[in-house]
């Protein structure tokens, strides 16, 4: 067994709740003493030992503490409890090009960023040509970075980060940005690092990547480690957590007296016409018929829209539905403006009790719709509404 490069023991991280935080002296004086001792535990009792050369996939629902854990491991945030020990140079792909200054040229930024990441000027000189070649920016390297396209910016940031010959690479969702060829390049580089014995900790929503790349999968939920071990099991564990586990064949149907998804319709909310092809910015409506026993319990429906590589894009939860006398109910989700996404998307739907503790039925409708938008990067902001249709 190779020696551990990362040892986290009993790590907990508590954030003070935002509305209680004093950001000015005046507030601090006014809040004096009554300021909060309560907080929000983003991580709790995390014990993690990562051996040198391992590739670990870190997955979990949104807000489960993945990014916080990466920041604690990389020394950006201090843990509230427990200890973190790290041996080796960390390169974190938390945000590519975080240290860039728009006024400086690409060349100047490479030197600056490499210095921040712990390289000496001589080391940077040695890697410089490789960095520029990898970023494919030879003609632009003496232009100011503020004139770069977002793709060029990210490529340069990535190139610097991977050329500082890290011992430990922390990757957070980089595969969510950039075009396909860049994503492939990222994956190739990651494979390259694996061969050279680099330790990699990899946060992703792309569940099918986990078994392909990682030798170990860690599932976080509400700040605790839920699973640590086999990557395939880890991905399954998360799918069941998200309610996107069952496949589309419908064999996942359960005994007749439990609520289940009976039908699904996608349509244009304006005209009501069925539709399977949406442009970015268009409105989209999805209706589910839920069938269940007469006089059955109230249920709620969770709908996750998942993109290429099984990446959940966003999740919508209905209010509790009250089935009619025949046990049937229909719920509609209306997305006001489809975000600028591109590709074929699947719908994963789960019928659960309103508290979300029991899943009665879960289905996946793959290739549910085609979206044609400009590929945008960054945080998706989806405005949606839900209502029960009588």
């Amino acid at each position: 067994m190779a020696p551990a490069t990362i040892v986290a023991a009993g790590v907990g991280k508590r954030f003070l709740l935002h509305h209680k935080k004093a950001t000015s002296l005046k507030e601090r004086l006014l809040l004096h003493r009554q300021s909060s001792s309560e907080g929000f535990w983003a991580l709790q009792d995390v014990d993690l030992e990562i051996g040198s050369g391992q590739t670990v996939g870190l997955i979990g629902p949104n807000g489960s503490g993945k990014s916080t854990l990466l920041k604690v491991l990389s020394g950006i945030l201090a843990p509230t409890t427990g200890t973190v020990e790290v041996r080796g140079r960390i390169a974190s792909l938390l945000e590519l090009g975080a240290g860039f200054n728009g006024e400086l040229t690409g060349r100047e930024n490479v030197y600056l960023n490499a210095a921040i990441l712990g390289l000496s000027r001589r080391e940077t000189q040695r890697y410089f040509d490789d960095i520029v070649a990898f970023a494919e920016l030879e003609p632009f390297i003496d232009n100011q970075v503020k004139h770069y396209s977002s793709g060029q910016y990210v490529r340069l940031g990535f190139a610097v980060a991977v050329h500082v010959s890290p011992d430990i690479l922390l990757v957070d969702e980089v595969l969510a940005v950039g075009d396909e060829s860049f994503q492939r390049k990222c994956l190739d580089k990651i494979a390259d690092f694996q061969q050279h014995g680099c330790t990699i900790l990899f946060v992703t929503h792309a569940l099918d990547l986990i078994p392909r790349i990682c030798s170990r999968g860690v599932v976080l939920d509400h700040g605790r480690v839920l699973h640590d071990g086999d990557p395939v099991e880890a991905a399954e564990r998360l799918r069941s957590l998200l309610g996107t586990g069952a496949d589309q064949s419908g064999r996942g149907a359960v005994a007749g007296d439990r609520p289940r998804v009976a039908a699904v319709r996608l349509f244009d909310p304006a005209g009501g016409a069925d539709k399977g092809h949406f442009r970015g910015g268009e409105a989209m409506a999805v209706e589910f018929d839920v069938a269940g026993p007469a006089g059955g319990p109230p249920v709620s429906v969770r709908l996750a829209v998942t993109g290429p590589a099984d990446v959940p894009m966003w999740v919508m939860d209905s209010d509790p539905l009250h089935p009619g006398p025949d046990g049937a109910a229909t719920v509609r989700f209306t997305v006001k403006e489809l975000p600028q996404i591109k590709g074929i998307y699947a719908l994963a739907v789960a019928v659960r009790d309103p508290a979300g503790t029991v899943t009665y039925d879960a289905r996946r409708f793959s290739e549910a719709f085609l979206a044609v938008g400009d590929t945008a990067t960054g945080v998706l902001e989806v405005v949606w509404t839900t209502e029960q249709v009588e």
Partner: protein
Amino acid sequence: MAQVQQAADARAAAQSRVRLELLTELVRKDLKVKYKNSALGFIWSLANPLLYLAVFTLVFDKLLKNGIEAFPVLFMSGFLVWNFFNLATLSGTGSVVGNANLVRKVRFPRVVLPLSSVGFAGVHFVLQLGVLLIVLAAFYRDAFGPQLVLLVPALAVVTVFATGMALLASALNVRYRDVEHLLEVILLAWFWLTPIVYPVTFVRDQFAGDSWLFRLYMANPMAGVVTAMQRAIYVHPVTGGRQILPAGGYGFYLTWLAVGGVIAVVLLAAGWWTFRRLQADFAEEL
């Protein structure tokens, strides 16, 4: 294996230690950013002391004669060092908040941020002092005497003091953004409480009956630094029967520099300690 481990530990240390190379790279960045897209670039900073000299000569030697011989030289010798302190403190205060993006995303020793602000101000100061000395070589030869040695302890004290201010204020400013605004006001008052525009002997004569008040006034480390700078460059202790700078050897200057030095070292220690204590929370508070 042990060697591999050691090398890895060394690389880990390189990411958390304050390295001179990182500091110079950050200072270089600040200088480049400041003069990017300006045709004259650095010349602006160098022209600054020349302009002041010209204006002060015009106003105080020709228009508002205040009776102090070579007053622009007296003024500039204190004013440049004050500018260094002022710039280092103010840009240092905003250094952590201004680099929030970096602090929230990247692992590196945070303390280099205020330190590089002091370095940035220091580069400016050294160049401006150079320009002043060149001009004096042409118009005020007397400046180049043995008393110039006083520059060494004076610059040492002001550097330590400014570094302490920058460390303390930058750390506190992350939690209380008021610090920045408060300091702007304080520095303005502080400027007038330091003998830059008026000679220190005026204050001494005012407080003649109460030497304790004068001692309190001089306990301001910047008062010690500024008078020592003036004594080093301005060589007219006595003008027309009026004492401008305390005469009689360097005892007065060295004493107050020593007092200022002690205060500066205490402040640096306090700033360092505060920064160390608070830096763990920077990424969260920003």
